[in-house]
């Protein structure tokens, strides 16, 4: 186990050194020189989208609430093509017209507004630090179990490895490691799914055990209410259009015509990788009901417990490497967009011209890592609190202005700004009220979904009230981008 983990880190370090030698400009550092091919883009997008939750938290959630947890991943059947149609095509066309490196820059170009650029950068920075902190904590937990370190040093080791290749090689290093890590994730997940089916004697045998012992588990909603499961579908469906670490990758594609096969490749990779999410959760539940495995003390133990009991050692090591891979690829992407927000977006929002971007980009990468590391080393309670709004903050602040705004000429700068601020305020306030216990949501309603729907409504309403300004906010080249 230890030797495979060390081999994995050696490969990642090698990729970092190779990428650092090829990173000479800010364009290389932030958008990989815009020289990325189809397969690299698709695998990297998949690896970035999926975090450690796919391998640890997801199977644990299936074990705990049944098939209702599938509603987190079911939207992937639509989101892969939706992302290509709604975002990839527009953002790739934009970089042919403008020198754009970041999502806030794209929004500034779309709405001719520095305020929109600045506020979206603030939202991204807040979400990046919180998301990174939870991912570093998860990385620490994995390294704690594989390397035998205690948690704090394990978190520091994980953060240093990601920092080393991110600061030296920027997004280029991230892309190359994403391909390596994404393939690792797909192969390991597919193999584990096979072991999961075999361990339970096939799908029919597993279903019969579940139906006789816990029929509610096999309900499509599991133990969730239909409203709660459908809220997952809503947030993880439309919310994918507001994830800047994924959207940012569309700037990097070398040839726009390659987008033709992007949904196909992404769907294939994503489907294979998500097999573990469902397979392990169901298999562990079956084995617990049959008395083969003891009940889990914590749902997050589902994957490690299954690997120990039912898979060969090398495959278990491969999966744990895949978990590490998923976390590290996500953290690297966050570092890239966070550093870009500090280096380019916030200075420009205040009317300043960014200078020496490569050096400053690397410096901000270090600062953001240290900041997230400090948060991750704080109490679990704090990390859990800040971690819950990362995805929601991205979704509620960026889906309307970015995904709708780049496809609807009637969207206005005032609406974009209002929706970003609404998403920011709603997510932070509603999540805080819920966390502090000062407000209790009705069953099935989540703070994230509420903030997302509020921000969408504000976007449409303000666009309608300010509709006479829509035409003035759209330059001719942006009109061409939206007609592409």
């Amino acid at each position, binding site marked *: 186990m230890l030797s495979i983990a060390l081999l994995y880190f050696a490969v990642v370090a090698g990729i970092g050194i190779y990428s650092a030698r090829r990173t000479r400009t800010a364009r290389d550092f932030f958008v990989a020189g815009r020289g990325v091919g189809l397969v690299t883009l698709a695998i990297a997008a998949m690896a970035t989208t999926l975090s450690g939750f796919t391998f640890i938290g997801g199977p644990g959630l299936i074990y705990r609430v049944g*098939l209702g947890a599938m509603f987190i991943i*079911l939207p992937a*059947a*639509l989101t*892969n*093509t*939706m992302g290509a149609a*709604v975002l990839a*095509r527009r953002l*790739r*066309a934009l970089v042919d017209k403008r020198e754009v490196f970041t999502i806030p820059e794209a929004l500034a170009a779309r709405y001719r507004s*520095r*305020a929109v650029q*600045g506020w979206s950068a*603030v939202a991204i920075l807040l979400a990046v630090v919180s998301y990174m902190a939870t991912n570093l904590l998860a990385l620490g937990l994995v390294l704690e179990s594989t390397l035998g370190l205690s948690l704090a040093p394990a978190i520091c080791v994980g953060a240093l490895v990601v920092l080393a290749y991110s600061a030296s090689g920027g997004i280029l290093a991230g892309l190359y490691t994403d391909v390596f890590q994404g393939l690792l994730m797909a192969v390991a997940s597919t193999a584990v799914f096979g072991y999961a089916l075999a361990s339970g004697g*096939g*799908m*029919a045998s*597993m*279903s*019969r055990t579940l*139906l006789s012992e816990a*029929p*509610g588990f*096999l*309900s499509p909603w599991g133990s969730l209410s*239909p*409203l709660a499961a*459908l809220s997952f*579908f809503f947030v993880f*469906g*439309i919310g994918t259009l507001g994830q800047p670490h994924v959207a940012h990758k569309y700037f990097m594609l070398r040839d*726009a*015509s390659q987008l*033709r*096969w992007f*949904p*196909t490749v992404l*769907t294939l990779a994503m489907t294979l990788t998500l097999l573990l999410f469902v397979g392990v959760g169901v298999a562990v539940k079956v084995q617990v009901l049959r008395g083969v495995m003891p009940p889990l003390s914590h749902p997050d133990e589902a994957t490690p417990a299954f690997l120990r009991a039912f898979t060969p050692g090398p495959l278990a090591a491969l999966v744990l490497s895949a978990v590490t891979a998923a976390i590290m690829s996500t953290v690297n992407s966050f570092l890239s967009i966070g550093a870009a927000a500090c280096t380019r977006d916030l200075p420009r*929002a*205040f*009317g300043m011209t960014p200078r020496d971007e490569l050096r400053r980009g690397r410096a901000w990468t270090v600062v953001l890592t240290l900041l997230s590391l400090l948060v991750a080393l704080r109490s679990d309670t704090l990390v859990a609190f800040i971690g819950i709004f990362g995805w929601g903050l991205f979704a509620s602040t960026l889906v309307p202005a970015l995904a*709708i705004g780049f*496809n*609807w*000429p*009637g969207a206005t700068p005032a609406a974009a700004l209002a929706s970003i601020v609404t998403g920011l305020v709603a997510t932070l306030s509603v999540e805080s009220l819920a966390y502090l216990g000062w407000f209790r949501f*009705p*069953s099935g*309603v989540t703070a994230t*979904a509420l903030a997302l*729907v509020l921000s969408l409504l504000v976007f*449409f309403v303000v666009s309608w009230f300010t509709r006479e300004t829509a*035409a*003035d906010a*759209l*330059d001719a080249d942006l*009109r061409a981008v939206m*007609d*592409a």
Partner: protein
Amino acid sequence: MALSCGMTAHPPSASRDVRPGFPPIARLGLALVIGGTVMVALAYALAFAAEPWPARSAWLMSAAQPAIMVGAMALSTRGRSARDRRWVLTLVVVALSVLSGLLAVLLMPAEQATTQLRLGLPPRVLVLLVLVVAVPTVALPWAYAKTFVAVADGE
């Protein structure tokens, strides 16, 4: 706030074209996205108004999901793709498939120990996997690739 004070308007651009080039399918897509968003808001408003949440909330949410997601894809359709029947037809089929899949799961009887399995799965799970997962997974990437018009070749 300091940010709003420091941020100024973007400098004006030299040329602008404000022609409303918004094809009917994109208009329909926008209507679906707005309609779907309103349905989600209504579903949550009903849930806040009555505890436990009323069944109407789940019906509204089921209808809202395909409306918003397929609506977003329709909203993004431009140029030759907007006149390509294969893409438009695929969006219609996927919307109906997801809608009927979610509604069927709400309508069909719950699982019991005596439930007959189909392909190793309870009927509701099989319906969900076929209509909400398999149909979009196969149809959307295929239709997107078949009707793709390269940006450079766009109209």
